[in-house]
């Protein structure tokens, strides 16, 4: 055997490890389910369900007849007529309006005072009371609808009184606010899709998780790591092969989930509430690009964590804790909307999060942002790989307990 050919063949150790791990894990039902079915498809399905429920509820509330219990309807027949014209169905009076709202029997209750008619005829201001619970977010649309109808009716009547006295209605409203909403259909969608980046991260995570556990803690528990390390292959090469296998599985997961979102994106009736959503090829390509360094980073982190564990179950526990980390940027951004600074793109997870939100807004990402995002995450990934490689050199790693 001459030296040259031996060298070339030994370079194939990486490939040998990679192919073996892929083959072995393709034979594992649990890994397959997690990487190719539940992991990547649960996200899109859950998403489309949530969105549909939310959208339909919003749409329903805006168009459907709205039943509102009214106390003292007889005192203000004209007001009631105006409400009816706006789609409100006045209901029978209830004994305790506050209690009715609190018990969620009605979204909103209207109470008209008995002296309404008298005051109205005198031209004095009168009060109508709206009972509602602002902490019930799903009731807000109904409350606003009723409140707008009442206020519109009041303004209309006021204007007519002024005209009757020979005054211009304008005298009562010297100032008028003209709202110029700069939200685009896409940017309105962003609010609703803030969790989307997290879905992608979780998918990558789930796709590689079982492999990462199996390839370090699992191999150790099965006592196959010691014989493996007795082969004339440097440990870092073995690690690289394993990492590549994890990356292959998590990338496949990501591709499946992107495909899933592209398909379900067509079934989300976003345009009905004035939103625009593009989850198609353009979006998927950029997400894939932004996510690739994260694939490497997460696989290295998972291997690192799993290598610390003595058993499969211990590794599983550690990794599920690690899974909580990617929630941080998503949660942070939805609770305190910050203006994105350039440097933020260089932070792994946060950068991807910001980038994907940009894409959803339809603003697109600039080359600089992509560059920062890739460079930052790739640097973090390399550090994680190096630390894991260092851990692989330890004598203790191979010794099964």
């Amino acid at each position, binding site marked *: 055997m001459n030296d040259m050919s031996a060298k070339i063949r030994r370079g194939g*150790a990486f490939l040998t490890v990679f192919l073996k791990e892929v083959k072995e*894990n393709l*034979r594992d039902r649990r890994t397959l389910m997690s990487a190719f079915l539940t992991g990547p498809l649960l996200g899109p399905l859950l998403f489309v369900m949530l969105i549909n429920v939310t959208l339909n509820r919003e749409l329903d509330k805006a168009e459907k007849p709205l039943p509102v219990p009214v106390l003292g309807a007889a005192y203000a027949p004209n007001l009631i007529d105006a409400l009816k014209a706006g789609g409100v169905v006045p209901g029978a009076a209830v004994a305790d309006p506050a209690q009715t709202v609190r018990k969620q029997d009605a979204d909103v209750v209207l109470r008209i005072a008995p002296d309404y008619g008298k005051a109205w005829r005198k031209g004095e201001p009168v009060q109508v009371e709206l009972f509602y619970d602002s902490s019930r977010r799903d009731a807000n649309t109904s409350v606003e609808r009723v409140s707008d109808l009442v206020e519109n009716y009041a303004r209309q009547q006021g204007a007519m009184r002024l005209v009757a006295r020979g005054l211009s209605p304008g005298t009562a409203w010297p100032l008028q606010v003209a709202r110029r909403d700069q939200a685009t259909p896409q940017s309105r969608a962003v609010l609703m899709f803030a969790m989307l980046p997290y879905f992608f991260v979780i998918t990558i995570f789930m796709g590689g998780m079982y492999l990462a556990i199996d390839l370090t803690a699992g191999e150790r528990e099965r006592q196959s790591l*010691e*014989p493996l390390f007795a*082969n*004339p292959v440097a440990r870092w090469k073995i690690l690289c092969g394993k990492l590549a296998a994890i990356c292959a599985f998590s990338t496949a997961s990501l591709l499946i989930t992107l495909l899933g979102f592209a398909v379900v994106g067509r079934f989300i009736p976003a345009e009905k509430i004035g939103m625009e959503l593009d989850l198609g090829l353009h979006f998927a390509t950029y997400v894939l690009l932004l996510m690739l360094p994260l694939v490497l980073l997460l696989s290295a982190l998972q291997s690192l964590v799993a290598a610390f564990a003595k058993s499969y179950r211990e590794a599983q526990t550690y990794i599920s804790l690690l899974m909580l980390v990617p929630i941080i940027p998503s949660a942070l951004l939805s609770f305190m909307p910050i203006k994105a600074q350039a440097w933020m793109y260089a932070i792994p997870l946060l950068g991807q999060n910001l980038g994907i939100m940009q894409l959803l807004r339809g603003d697109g990402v600039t080359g600089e942002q992509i560059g920062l995002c890739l460079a930052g995450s790739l640097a973090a990934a390399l550090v994680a790989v190096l630390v894991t490689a260092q851990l692989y050199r330890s004598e203790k790693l191979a010794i099964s307990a």
Partner: protein
Amino acid sequence: MIEVRDLHKAFGAVKAVDGVSFTARDGEITGLLGPNGAGKTTTLRMLYTLMAPDRGQVLVDGIDAAADPLAVRRQLGVLPDARGLYKRLSARENIDYFGRLHGLPEELLASRREALVKALEMGDIADRRTEGFSQGQRVKTAIARALVHDPRNVILDEPTNGLDVMATRALRQFMTRLKEEGRCVLFSSHIMQEVGALCDRIVVIAHGRVVADETPDALRAQTGENNLEDAFVKIIGSEEGLAA
């Protein structure tokens, strides 16, 4: 040939190996005998470079294990204490994996693999996934994958551990065959009869030290005991941890 010179290895305050030296020659079976916890496995782990010795030197066919661990591993076929197989791969696939890691070309790998499958009489299980293999079937597979690259030196850590009588007999015959092929066979055991029956040379280890390094006959002569079992007990100084 495997040469071990003054090996030391401590784990914290525990001196697992405390000055072990011996030579295992080609064409001989060398037995590493000692009670449980004597330091056999740790010594072997330093031989196949899984661990680095605190002090001392390991030479395999003249190559220093500290200087070129990869070259040493290439000269060795190792059945470690841990015999984990890949349960979702068949026996043949398990063997192939290690053969490829050794860089064997596919044709050579196939012929070596089939020769071992035949020699170890594992033709009927070779294409089954190793999940659910018996202990004997597992050891056979582990030995086949350890020897697939045709190593000059073979290290076996307690190879007959957990095997039934038939499997043990077959394995002993296989080891004799390896010796007849001119290989250097080094194995550890705590079973005296096995070591006495198989070995050309016996290295007795107790408390991390070599307490005897002789042929079986010389051991009997040295201790003045006719029976090997009595000879070992005399050398080690206690009966603890040995099995007949």
